[in-house]
């Protein structure tokens, strides 16, 4: 009997080791050589690609959504009057040109000969219908409406000219018109079918039309043969598969079942790089992550303490080590992609001595405990928070990390000022203009601002909204960022870098900064 137990125990252990070896075998000899040089399993798929995404919006109506998951797919189906290219520059979309007739009147010349996927013509009526719907009863049920309230009405001048009348100057209107809620929808189609039908069967003018949709499983897009851009799109078919778990997505990619993987985790980067037929592509995003201070809490109301914490943490080391370099330091709560970012501001340097001095000056006792709230579903950020805790401990502060349900954190704790001394918040600023971020984070009484208050900040925020002169606004933002830098309302950690993995049979695949995949130029070898 004895022998049997021993052999059993050794059997269990060897089983574990085999499993381990299977999964980790390739990496032990990791050099620059691709250690996994199997044949490309996806090479025979033909002129179509499959993309693995982590989620889908469940509702394709553009006025009902604010989800990045929507934009990843729907960008191929819908188009707006203006568009952003892969470098995020505003360019003509369904409008060929535009001009401000005055501060509150904006006129668009529309592209001619464009058709919706169902054959309806695109014209000024469609534009008017789209915005009437967005600003009317239907739009008010959804989250997009409030972004466009500066538009008073849309006037049809002639078939291919539409004029927007505003009720107040809106300096970020154009960038908003490149946003989700402003994509143009086909009037007849929307009116003929009920709400539910359009939610599931979206029709737009984009390079691909949606021909199949199984909720939470897959979305099938097929080439729009009448697309207005000559010779595009190049692919016949794009299928999106919904694969929520990152390790499963990677497995699908390794086995060739998908050609592109969205959201590669930093932990998985090595594996992708080591596989001969896979490519890892990184792209900076507008999303920044910070541990924001709640100045409504004792200690956090003291600027010196907030600054000290900024000095105490070696952000570059965190980025290099935990994010494997896939991240960038930020000086204020916005990315370098944001209009209003101040390139002259250097992020707080790592200076623990200075931190200790400031803490002493503020009279903070050694061993003071700070409560920190982070979402429990973000493994990577848990590591980062622990590293922050490690640095703070060096200057005599202790961190008490609370890992909580993400939804509770954003919908309950943060808005009500119950998220401790510091809490994680990530913010993208969808207009790519600091106005969005700054207003929501620092204007008194906003949803995401439980307690930050500063007279001067309020003044500057109002000033930049009062003008459409972008140079003037930029100047105001420079002043604002310097002020915020000094006030240090958050421990600014990094600008996120998104990782995508693509099968090497793809050509011209360029991942987007803003999750909105643009696929018309993509082809296969």
């Amino acid at each position: 009997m004895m022998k049997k137990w021993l052999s059993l125990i050794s059997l269990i252990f060897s089983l574990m080791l085999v499993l381990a070896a299977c999964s980790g075998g390739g990496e032990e000899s990791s050099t620059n050589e691709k250690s996994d040089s199997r044949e490309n399993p996806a090479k025979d798929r033909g002129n179509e690609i499959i993309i693995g995404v982590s989620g889908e919006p469940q509702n394709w109506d553009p006025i009902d959504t604010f989800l990045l998951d929507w934009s990843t797919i729907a960008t191929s189906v819908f188009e707006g009057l203006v568009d952003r290219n892969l470098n995020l520059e505003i360019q003509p979309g369904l409008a060929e040109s535009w001009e401000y007739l005055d501060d509150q009147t904006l006129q668009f010349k529309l592209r001619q000969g464009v058709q919706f996927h169902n054959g309806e013509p695109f014209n000024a009526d469609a534009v008017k219908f789209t915005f009437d719907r967005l600003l009317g009863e239907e739009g008010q049920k959804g989250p997009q409406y409030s972004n466009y309230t500066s538009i008073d009405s849309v006037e049809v001048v002639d078939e291919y000219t539409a004029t927007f009348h505003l009720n107040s100057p809106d300096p970020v209107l154009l960038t908003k018109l490149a946003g989700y809620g402003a994509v143009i929808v086909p009037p007849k189609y929307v009116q003929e079918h009920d709400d539910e039908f359009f939610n599931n069967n979206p029709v737009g003018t984009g390079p691909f039309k949606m021909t199949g949709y199984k909720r939470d499983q897959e979305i099938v897009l097929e080439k729009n043969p009448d697309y207005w851009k000559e010779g595009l799109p190049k692919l016949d078919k794009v299928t999106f598969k919904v694969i929520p778990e990152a390790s499963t997505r990677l497995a699908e990619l390794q086995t060739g079942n998908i050609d592109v993987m969205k959201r590669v985790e930093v932990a998985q980067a090595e594996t992708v790089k080591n596989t001969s037929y896979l490519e890892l592509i990184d792209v900076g995003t507008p999303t920044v992550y910070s541990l924001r201070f709640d100045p409504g809490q004792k200690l956090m109301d003291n600027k010196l303490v907030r600054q000290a914490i900024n000095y105490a943490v070696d952000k570059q080391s965190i980025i290099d080590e935990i994010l494997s370099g896939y991240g960038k330091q930020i000086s204020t709560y916005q990315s370098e992609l944001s209009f209003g970012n101040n390139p002259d501001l250097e992020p707080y340097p790592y200076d623990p001595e200075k931190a200790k001095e400031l803490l002493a000056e503020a009279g903070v006792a050694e061993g003071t405990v700070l409560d920190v709230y982070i979402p429990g579903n973000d493994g990577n950020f848990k590591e980062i928070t622990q590293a922050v805790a490690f640095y703070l401990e060096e200057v005599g502060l202790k961190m008490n990390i609370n890992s909580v349900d993400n939804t509770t954190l954003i919908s309950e704790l943060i808005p009500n000022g119950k998220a401790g001394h510091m809490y994680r918040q990530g913010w993208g600023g969808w207009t790519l203009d600091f106005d969005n971020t700054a207003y929501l984070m620092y204007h008194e009484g906003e949803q995401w601002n439980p307690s930050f208050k500063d007279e001067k900040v309020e003044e500057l925020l109002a000033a930049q909204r009062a003008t459409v002169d972008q140079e003037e606004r930029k100047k105001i933002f420079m002043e604002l960022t310097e002020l915020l830098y000094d006030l240090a309302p958050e421990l600014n950690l990094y600008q996120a870098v998104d990782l995508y993995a693509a099968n090497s049979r793809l050509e011209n695949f360029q991942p987007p900064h803003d999750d909105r995949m643009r696929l018309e130029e993509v082809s296969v070898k």
Partner: protein
Amino acid sequence: MTSVGLEKAVPVNPPRRPHLKKLWRFIKKNPVGFIGLILVALSVSCALFAPFITPFDPSKASLSSRLAPPSWADPKGESAFLLGADQVGRDLLSRIIYGARISLMVGIFGVLIAMVIGTVLGLISGYFGKWLDDIIMRVADIQLAFPFILFAIVIMSVLGTGIWKIIIILGLTYWVGFARLIRGQVISLKEQEYIQAAKAIGGTNFNIIRKHILPNVLSSILVLGTMYIAEFILLEASLTFLGLGVDPTIPSWGGMLADSRNYITSAWWTAVFPGVAIMITVLGFNLLGDWLRDKLDPNMKV
């Protein structure tokens, strides 16, 4: 594992000491229970002696040793860590040893809560029957039909987070198992002659339950408790997987495992060794429970 080696010497040297002989007979008769005991003893001693046997401070982070491989698998031979280091450079072995405390705490205290609530309600329900039984069993049905994850989120948003909240959540969810089991046994015990007799001579309900019923259901409670310890240790891991776990500085096996699942192809040790630790402990409790059931209550339906 040293104890196994010790035992192995026994048959070679004919036992002069009678208790060793007894032990050997026990092992031969109950191999399942014995392995269970050994495995449980292993994790219990890790929990008890953690500060004396860990090679490093389990909370000492250092970014420079982040994801250092196990020393025997390190091609560069630089790693000082027997089982490697985790995502923030802490010694994995030390964390796993300390993790035994967390896992056992979750298992044992969680089960204690469930056991106390379930036993009391099960006794009341089975002994008094009628409307009390109806109410308690309906509450049990409701508890069973209510999604565990939603329950966890609700409790956490009311009470906050942390290891004790998880223990409370598990205890408050799993009392139903005890209550149902005990209720069933009490119902059949109640009809037994000696209990009827005790009632007839005017014994108070409390005394009858205490003297005659409770002792008879104890073994089932013990068996179910042992098995639930195993299940709770796994549930803690599941909660972390769903983003509802304890904070990452606490060395919980479940937490380590769930948070390192994406490292499985790049730093396998972070995902494999905590898994082995869970497996050993959970298997240990399951074997122990299985054996106890065979011994104490072979007809139990769990």
